């Protein structure tokens, strides 16, 4: 664990490094590395096979890193990345908190996610992922009682192989895209949740991702299955130390909602964004997709993206079941030299399927923000509807905002509505607020928060409060 490459303290308050002994393998990607990762995790044969299939596919596409996105970064040397780094004491997943390195517990404490029984967050079950390995899961017993499985991915592979075999790659196949393929080959851990038939999950489930080590890439996988008529609200939070070098984070999230089930997935992405001059920061190249597999199921993505040097993600929904519903609510903020190319894909297969997209892009500094979205309504998806609203707010003269909607409709009983706007905080609005005694800085904050309101109101309350604070910190000193 080195601290020499740490950047001086900035406004980013999660930039600390924990001194944790780690078990890492040498840099580079090869079949041996894949076998080593699998062996370290003591995986059953089927899992290794799947990884190898993904790796072989990656060999075919390794020169085909996507280039269509509206972001710029130097070429990534995939042989210069450590593909497995785990806290040394973690072994193959957490057994009890007494086995977790105290430095890790302290790190999560500092992040406001206490894991100890006495201090745990009320109403939120947390799976804490430290450098891509799940170190602790809270509330396990009370979830067990109603038959909910919530554990690390590694544990699920061991204890629930049938569920993993059935659903892994069923929404994001290993051949889906460059980064998903890479993830499928090398993923280290992540979270797994299964909500049984008719169960309404009594607490919020949360995975908190913490990157700590320096050269490691981060490759987690999350899989959530909501069985018929069940409901779950899932939260995801992320932070990392501030380092000079860019770190790759290529995660995959798959959601499956069976008949009448509902999954609400909320993300606060606050990876280290890099410095004011654009040094360091996380490359957040993530594939997230849900499948409304059953009739009248619903999947809702809400994301607040304030961190990362580059964000590349398109959480989408495949609306397979008739009458199913897909939603995407997003706030993406870029400041200084941050770049974001983010949006969603709504694929309508079933009849009477509905999707809603509300995207709010905020650009400050020299940040560049692109909304990219696909709405595709297939021939059988009769009477389907989509409503899309993309709003951009520009806070400086040097930042950029782009909206790139792709729309394909293959039947004539469906309808699509698309609205887009670009605005600035006007001098008249500011004077109006100031005349009411509210200083310019507070007025900006209020107007920016107002701009995000439609998205924030979709978040669980505590998360919404946190999101609004995050937004303030991200945009500090960027206006007026």
């Amino acid at each position, binding site marked *: 664990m080195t601290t020499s490459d740490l950047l001086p303290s900035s406004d980013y308050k999660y930039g600390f490094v924990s001194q944790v002994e780690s078990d890492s393998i040498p840099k580079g990607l090869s079949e041996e590395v894949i076998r080593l990762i699998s062996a370290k995790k003591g995986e059953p044969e089927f899992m290794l096979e799947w990884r190898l299939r993904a790796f072989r596919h990656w060999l075919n596409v390794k020169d085909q890193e996507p280039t269509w996105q509206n972001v710029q970064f130097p070429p990534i040397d995939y042989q210069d990345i450590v593909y497995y780094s785990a806290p040394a004491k973690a072994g193959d997943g957490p057994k009890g908190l007494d086995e977790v390195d105290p430095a890790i517990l302290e790190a999560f404490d500092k992040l406001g996610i206490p894991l100890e029984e006495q201090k745990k967050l009320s109403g939120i079950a947390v799976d804490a992922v430290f450098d891509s390995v799940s170190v602790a899961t809270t509330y396990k017993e009370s979830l067990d009682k109603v038959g909910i499985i919530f554990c690390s991915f590694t544990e699920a592979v061991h204890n629930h192989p049938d569920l993993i075999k059935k659903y892994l790659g069923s929404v994001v196949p290993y051949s889906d895209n460059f980064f998903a393929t890479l993830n499928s080959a090398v993923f280290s851990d992540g979270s797994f949740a299964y909500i049984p038939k008719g169960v309404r999950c009594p607490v919020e489930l949360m995975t908190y991702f913490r990157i700590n080590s320096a050269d490691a890439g981060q490759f987690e996988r999350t899989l959530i299955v909501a069985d018929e008529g069940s409901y779950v609200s899932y939260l995801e939070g992320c932070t990392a130390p501030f380092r000079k070098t860019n770190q790759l984070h290529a995660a995959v999230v798959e959601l499956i909602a069976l008949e009448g089930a509902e999954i609400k997935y909320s993300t606060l992405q606050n990876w280290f964004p890099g410095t004011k001059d654009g040094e360091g920061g996380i490359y957040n190249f993530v594939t997230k997709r849900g499948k409304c597999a059953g009739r009248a199921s619903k999947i809702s993505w809400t994301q607040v993206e304030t961190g990362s040097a580059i964000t590349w993600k398109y959480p989408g929904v495949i609306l397979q079941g008739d009458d199913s519903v897909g939603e995407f609510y997003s706030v993406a903020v870029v400041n200084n030299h941050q770049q974001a190319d983010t949006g969603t894909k709504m694929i309508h297969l079933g009849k009477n399927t509905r999707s809603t997209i509300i995207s709010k892009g905020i650009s400050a500094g020299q940040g560049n923000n692109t909304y990219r979205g696909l709405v595709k309504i297939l021939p059988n998806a009769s009477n389907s509807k989509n409503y899309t609203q993309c709003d951009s707010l520009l806070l400086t003269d040097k930042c950029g905002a782009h909206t790139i909607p792709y729309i394909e409709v293959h039947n004539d009983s469906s309808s699509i509505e698309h609205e887009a706007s670009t605005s600035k905080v006007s*001098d008249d*609005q500011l004077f*109006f*607020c*100031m*005349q*009411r005694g*509210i200083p310019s800085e507070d007025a900006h904050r*209020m107007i920016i928060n*107002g701009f995000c309101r439609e998205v924030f109101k979709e978040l669980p309350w505590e998360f919404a409060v946190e999101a609004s604070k995050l937004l303030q910190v991200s945009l500090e000193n960027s206006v007026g």
Partner: protein
Amino acid sequence: MASSRRARPLLEVRGLRATAAGQEILTGLDLVVNAGEVHAIMGPNGSGKSTLAMVLAGNPAFTVTGGSVHYLGEDILALAPELRARKGIFLAFQTPMELPGVRNSEFLRASLNSIRVHRGLEEMSFREFGKLLKEKMKIVKMQPGFNSRSVNEGFSGGEKKKNEILQMALLEPRLAILDETDSGLDIDALKLVANGVNNLRNPKSATVIVTHYQRILDYITPDRVHVIMDGRIVRSSDSALAKELEAKGYEWIRDGSSDTPKAVAAGA
């Protein structure tokens, strides 16, 4: 209702000159308003009525090039707009701005609290504020639903103006300036606005009504009526002047405007 000789005026404007986008609009304006008074400032379009309102409130889009403005004896021209507001100057906007996504109640509470804190009072809790707001909303007969809507977004013209009067009632300013608040209102809304102004009338505060028409003066009887032309006050008199203007038009003043504008200061 002239105040005693020794009382210091609430507002004292002397020789005020101001420009917008390089063009001189106020050309040496004098105006004295005492506590307890209601003044009407009337004039044709482009005469500088709204500019006066904006300059008094401190809109940075206007540049003061000469003269002075004293409020409660203090020179306020160097004060930021929010400080003027906290000291009790309120401007009801001719075109109230929309703040998408900002809840009306949230905005009003932030406003009231910034003023309370300035006066050394504690911030008002959600609950306390809720009660106060409900009370004040009765004055302009606003439906409770208004406050969960975004500030002025999707409000009709009349609703926006009522919202301004609600803010005035809530903030209880010492000096309220109404910039053509009456324009575009139907008769019922006009009565509500007038009612709001009359409610605020007290010996410590004053109201300046900037208007093109005398219609609102049927419901609010001003102590003084001033006519502004080409950026300065050219005639001041009692409320009868408004009626006369209504009958004869502004050109009548221009034709005979040899009167010296110095006659303005009430009780001076």
